[in-house]
């Protein structure tokens, strides 16, 4: 899919005659296209070696990659440290779960609705939270996420503490059966790639430039006359929409929704993924999610005490690569 748009991307980048803005983020097709080819070939390799289980793992990595990328959108490029992002992901997941319980299994209905719910709730949270700054913003986003968590837990119809086991995956029609892991993987890959592309487009457009400028110096932007609050709120809602989509796919991937998806520790993990990959790097969320989850998977296969290894790696990264893994590239412009 990205193969057909690649020439378009290259052209778009070549067009601006002016110097590339410091707020522009190159898609780097030379790096990404081979990787994309590998990702497309992956299920075939897995099936050939009889290790179908890992297709599910890969889907999960991609879904979390999108969730982390949506957080990076507001954190890395907007300067908004949200400690409640898991709530938007969870809300998307529960939308799908609840609809399926009521007999609505169509993905064309449920997934966009999940995005809408994510956007709506983040609009609500953002409207109130964005009036605060710094650590207070962090705490108030946390508060809203916890409120939603407890609210969802209190409804037995939503499974309460135990969550909902979904009888099947969403129905996408088009002759595709999402119950097949490989098919599901390709759908996820397509959606995640498109979403990342969309986010990149927004970031490289005027809106994204303004957003990043706000992150650099909010007072100055306000003085110049930009409606800072409105820009941030729109970005926050957009991130919420993508998070909702990630949630919808997550619900399908595990055939399960549970309140644990909204807990603060989950928001913490999303933050860790972004920081690990590189705050403010276009692919920071995706890389962070991949490294985190794959590390978890690889370590868990060797020892039951894998959390020790994971913690050690994170600690080393914090001390050695303060701006995330993607900032380790020599010769590349990295934030701060």
């Amino acid at each position: 899919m990205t193969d057909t748009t690649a020439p378009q991307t290259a052209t778009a980048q070549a067009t601006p005659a002016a110097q590339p803005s410091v707020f522009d983020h190159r898609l780097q097709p030379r790096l990404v296209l081979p990787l994309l080819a590998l990702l497309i070939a992956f299920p075939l390799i897995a099936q050939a070696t009889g290790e179908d289980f890992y297709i599910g793992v890969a889907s999960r990595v991609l879904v979390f990659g999108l969730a982390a990328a949506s957080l990076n959108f507001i954190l890395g490029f907007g300067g908004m440290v949200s400690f409640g992002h898991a709530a938007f992901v969870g809300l998307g997941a529960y939308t799908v779960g609840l609809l399926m319980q009521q007999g609505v299994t169509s993905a064309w209905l449920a997934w966009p609705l999940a995005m809408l719910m994510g956007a709506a709730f983040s609009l609500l949270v953002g409207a109130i939270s964005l009036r605060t700054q710094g650590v207070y913003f962090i705490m108030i986003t946390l508060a809203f996420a916890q409120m939603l968590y407890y609210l969802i837990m209190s409804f037995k119809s939503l499974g309460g503490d135990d969550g909902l086991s979904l009888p099947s995956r969403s129905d996408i029609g088009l002759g595709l059966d999402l119950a097949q892991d490989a098919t599901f993987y390709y759908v996820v890959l397509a959606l995640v790639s498109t979403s990342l592309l969309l986010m990149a487009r927004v970031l490289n457009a005027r809106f994204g430039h303004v957003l990043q400028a706000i992150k650099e110096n909010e007072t100055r932007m306000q003085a110049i006359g930009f409606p800072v609050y409105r820009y941030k709120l729109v970005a926050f809602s957009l991130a919420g929409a993508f998070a909702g989509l990630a949630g919808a796919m997550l619900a399908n991937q595990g055939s399960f929704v549970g309140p644990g998806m909204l807990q603060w520790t989950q928001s913490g993990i999303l933050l860790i993924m972004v920081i690990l990959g590189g705050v403010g790097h276009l692919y920071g969320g995706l890389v962070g999610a991949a490294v985190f989850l794959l590390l978890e998977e690889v370590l868990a296969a060797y020892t039951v005490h894998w959390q020790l290894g994971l913690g050690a790696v994170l600690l080393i990264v914090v001390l050695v690569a303060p701006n995330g893994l993607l900032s380790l590239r020599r010769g590349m412009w990295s934030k701060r």
Partner: protein
Amino acid sequence: MNTILILEQTLNGLQFGLMLFLLAAGLTLVFGIMDMINLAHGSLYMIGAYLVASFSQASGSFWLGLGLGVLATVLVGVLLEYTVLRRLYHRDHLSQVMGTFAILLMSNEIVRIIWGAQPLMLNPPAALSGPVMLMDGFSYPAYRLLIIGVGLAVALLLWLLVTRTRFGMQVRAGAANREMATAMGANVRRLFTLVFALGAALCAVAGGMLGPLLAVQVGMGESILILAFVVIVIGGIGSIRGALLGAMLVGLVDTAGRTLVPLLFDKAMGPEVAANAGPAVASILIYVLMAAVLFYKPQGLFPAHD
């Protein structure tokens, strides 16, 4: 509504609030003075509980165990500060989140490796495992009274420390304005280590005291950590007085919520709804409280900063 029920719930709320205060006090000092978000604070609470339990079991005495456990936890805390946390003071909040989250993961696993995955049982001193007759027809567990007593005693000691000692003065100065305090000659490095050690001691006391009531298990710090953060935000970052009042408020709201709300729901809608919605509403109340405070008084009820 029953007077005894209300009395009992007030005492329970007081007991919970005081223990929460111990945790919040350490957290607010670290956040206020070193400007560090410490997600590993709950881990010190857990380690404290485990050490107290182990020493109690080994020595056969709860009090000896408590004393040794607190000392050992302070050592662990100082070691942690010296080797790792010190490097995070100058970093941005995000790095601190990641670094302390890493320590949280590692502590959980190390405790699991040393003590195993099963919870440890910690018993209160035998003399206090029974009830005390407070008034006619109302007996209250002696151990919970002890917790209230210890909590109040520690609060008093802390107040004396902060208002009557040189160390306390430096702490208050550091919380109010860090740069000025340094300029005035406070030995910042040593101050930071001492503050952290104090926080660790408070965590250990809370963990050791609550151990007999709850179970000493891996991950016990996570749930109480988030409440501690809520308390310091409500109370005001850097303020011990704020931490005390915030903790009392949260403790009472939480306990009252847990009893009264299900009772109301029970009468109105039956035990199933009470069971599901009751505790959830009680928890939501706390976060609504915090959001409200943040919105109207963003610096908290008793801000320490200028």
